[in-house]
């Protein structure tokens, strides 16, 4: 990829973000009352902002990579990300807006009148937020590495350097404009190149069957592996190697690889003639990658129980969306519950429209960039395709556009996440809360995931997102659903449910990443915890609530009425759940939903 264009594009995305942000900041400063202004944000603008924040590096790069590597089954990821908003719309959107809660801990506090529940929810928000930040940082490293040749850790550091001051200085102000701008940038960055790619594909004299197995190198291809890989060769193939293969040094000599498994050391360059079938990459633990079943709807990627895996994914994404800390915050900028519903429907359309594109890139990536399958960096498929398929200056320009979009993707999601995590840290978890401590909290919110990301090297990125969703689904989904729809919920029940559901999912996540169990049902159960941890969370919450029936909060009836009754057409002054006018930062508001009980 042309580095000059790439650096220019990334800089443009960063500068554009900062400029839009500061412009929005100025606009909102001149408005007599920022919060009144924010409550007149029309649904479509708000929806664009929500979508802009939601479509992360995982959506922009990860889905195409997963589809390229593992096939049609991975289409469940985008479907689940979108369907999550439908579940959110149906059960949560309007009541949550009416509750006036600004964060999940706020909701727990307002609904259950318990500081302890608030604190537990806070810890979980921080956990989920950090878990979700990791893949964003890795996406940043990947993109910037490809575009500028910088080492992997540089991207994570750049995100930290851009996001921290932006969040610490401006907080939520003006961010609506930034996020809306970034949604447009992301869609453009995938849509425009997609048109050219489709034209190029159409013009290809051999538009090979995308579903061909196994994929083949379409032209003479040179691959440099960055980490040592083990390749499974099905039919004998020839290559020219520079480096170490199977423990023997090669220096530009021809070698032929017999069927079997071959080890290629890090740094080795292999050159394959056109028409060579792409060798299959063995995962580190010896299980076979599912490349041979790429086209099958339930290939399950590399797991042993495809049907269970698929349902694990569905549970996590459908129910986890509502528990993502940065998603919830945005609903507060809606004028009222009705607008919250309308906004969510528009979000569904915008997000769904976006998700039509990444699978296309995945498909083309499989045909035109099969070497990524070999090196295992399929997340780069989106970025390298214009260069491969279009080529020339146009290809470079399109590649730069995509890089800018990817940049917008990880910047927007990362800033949203850092804002939510820092808010909760500063308000609920650090000693002596207050706006003065918001800045150190921001620093802490960024520092921990950056450190982990730099130290851990390469985590299974796409998987980390799925796990974050699983934890959110098994802790916050029960809290929100039962809190909104069931009068019997008590604080001890909620705390027990949060701890059991979220705790068990987190444990499963930790075990999966640490990797003591690598095979069979135990591995599958741990890698896709949502199917059992969500019901576990619900069950614990209900049973403990029933056992502590005398602890039902006294304000339950009032809280329920406020959640479910529509706002009066002309709100009395001030309407329930309105933030006080002009406060220095949204997080300074203590217990915003407390209403009649304060």
């Amino acid at each position, binding site marked *: 990829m042309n580095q000059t264009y790439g650096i220019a594009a990334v800089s443009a995305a960063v500068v554009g973000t900062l400029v839009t942000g500061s412009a929005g900041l100025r606009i909102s400063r001149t408005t007599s009352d920022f919060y009144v202004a924010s409550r007149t944000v029309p649904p479509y603008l708000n929806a664009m902002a929500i979508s802009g924040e939601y479509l992360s590096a995982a959506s922009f790069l990860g889905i195409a990579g997963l589809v390229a590597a593992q096939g049609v089954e991975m289409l469940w990821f985008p479907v689940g990300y979108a*369907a999550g908003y439908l579940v959110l719309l149906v059960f949560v959107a309007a009541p949550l807006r009416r509750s006036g809660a600004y964060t999940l801990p706020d909701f727990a506090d307002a609904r259950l009148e318990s500081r302890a529940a608030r604190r537990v929810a806070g810890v979980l928000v921080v956990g989920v937020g950090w878990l979700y930040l990791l893949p964003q940082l890795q996406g940043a490293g990947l993109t910037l590495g490809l575009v500028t040749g910088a080492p992997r850790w540089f991207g994570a550091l750049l995100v930290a350097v851009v996001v921290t001051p932006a969040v610490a200085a401006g907080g939520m102000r003006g961010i609506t404009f930034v996020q809306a701008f970034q949604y447009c940038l992301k869609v453009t960055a995938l849509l425009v190149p997609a048109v050219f790619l489709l034209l190029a594909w159409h013009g290809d004299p051999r538009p090979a069957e995308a579903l061909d197995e196994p994929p083949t190198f379409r032209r003479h291809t040179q691959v440099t592996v960055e980490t040592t890989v083990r390749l499974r060769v099905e039919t004998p193939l020839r290559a020219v190697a520079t480096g170490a293969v199977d423990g023997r040094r090669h220096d530009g000599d021809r070698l032929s690889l017999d069927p079997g498994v071959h080890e290629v050391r890090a740094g080795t360059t292999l050159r394959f003639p056109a028409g060579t079938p792409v060798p299959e990459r063995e995962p580190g633990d010896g299980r076979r990658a599912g490349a041979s079943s790429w086209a099958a709807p339930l290939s399950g990627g590399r797991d042993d129980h495809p049907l269970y895996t698929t349902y694990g994914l569905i549970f996590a994404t459908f129910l986890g969306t509502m528990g993502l800390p940065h998603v919830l915050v945005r609903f507060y900028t809606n004028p009222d519950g009705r607008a919250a519903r309308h906004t969510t429907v528009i979000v569904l359309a915008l997000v769904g429209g976006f998700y039509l594109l990444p699978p296309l890139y995945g498909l083309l990536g499989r045909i035109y960039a099969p070497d990524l399958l070999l090196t295992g960096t399929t997340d780069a498929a989106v970025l390298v395709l214009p260069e491969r398929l279009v080529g020339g200056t146009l290809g470079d320009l399109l590649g730069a556009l995509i890089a800018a979009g990817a940049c917008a993707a990880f910047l927007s999601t990362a800033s949203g996440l850092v804002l939510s995590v820092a808010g909760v840290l500063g308000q609920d978890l650090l000693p002596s809360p207050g706006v003065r401590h918001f800045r150190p909290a921001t620093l802490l919110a960024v520092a921990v995931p950056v450190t982990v990301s730099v130290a851990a090297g390469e985590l299974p990125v796409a998987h980390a997102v799925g796990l974050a969703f699983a934890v959110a689904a098994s802790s916050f989904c029960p809290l929100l659903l039962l809190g909104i729809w069931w009068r019997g919920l008590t604080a001890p029940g909620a705390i027990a449910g949060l701890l059991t559901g979220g705790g068990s999912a987190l444990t499963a996540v930790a075990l999966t990443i640490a990797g003591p169990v690598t095979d069979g049902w135990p591995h599958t159960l741990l890698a896709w915890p949502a199917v059992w941890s969500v019901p576990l969370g619900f069950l614990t919450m209900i049973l403990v609530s029933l056992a502590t029936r005398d602890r039902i909060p006294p304000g339950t009836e009032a809280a329920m009425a406020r959640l479910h009754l529509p706002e009066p057409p002309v709100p009395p002054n001030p309407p329930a759940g309105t933030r006080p006018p002009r406060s220095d930062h949204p997080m300074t508001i203590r217990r915003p939903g407390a209403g009649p009980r304060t």
Partner: protein
Amino acid sequence: MRRQLALSLKTFGMLVVLLGLLPLAFTALPDPAVRPGGTLVVWAVLGVAAYPALVVIGRWYVVRAERVEGDTADRAGGDTADRAEGGRR
């Protein structure tokens, strides 16, 4: 609230029936090695058709939910005092 919950559950049920049962349906598809057409169906359903379906369900829900809220407001007689009373009960 009860009617809202019923409506929400009904909508969620639609989602479960439409999307939740798909993996099971896919297992019933013929082996792609034998009939590659099945794969195309999966691509079309998951890659394209799912999103308009989600939007339509969402839209349908919003219309119904607002009708329920309109009824509730009518029953309250449009009197905000009534509503406040309900809130404090």
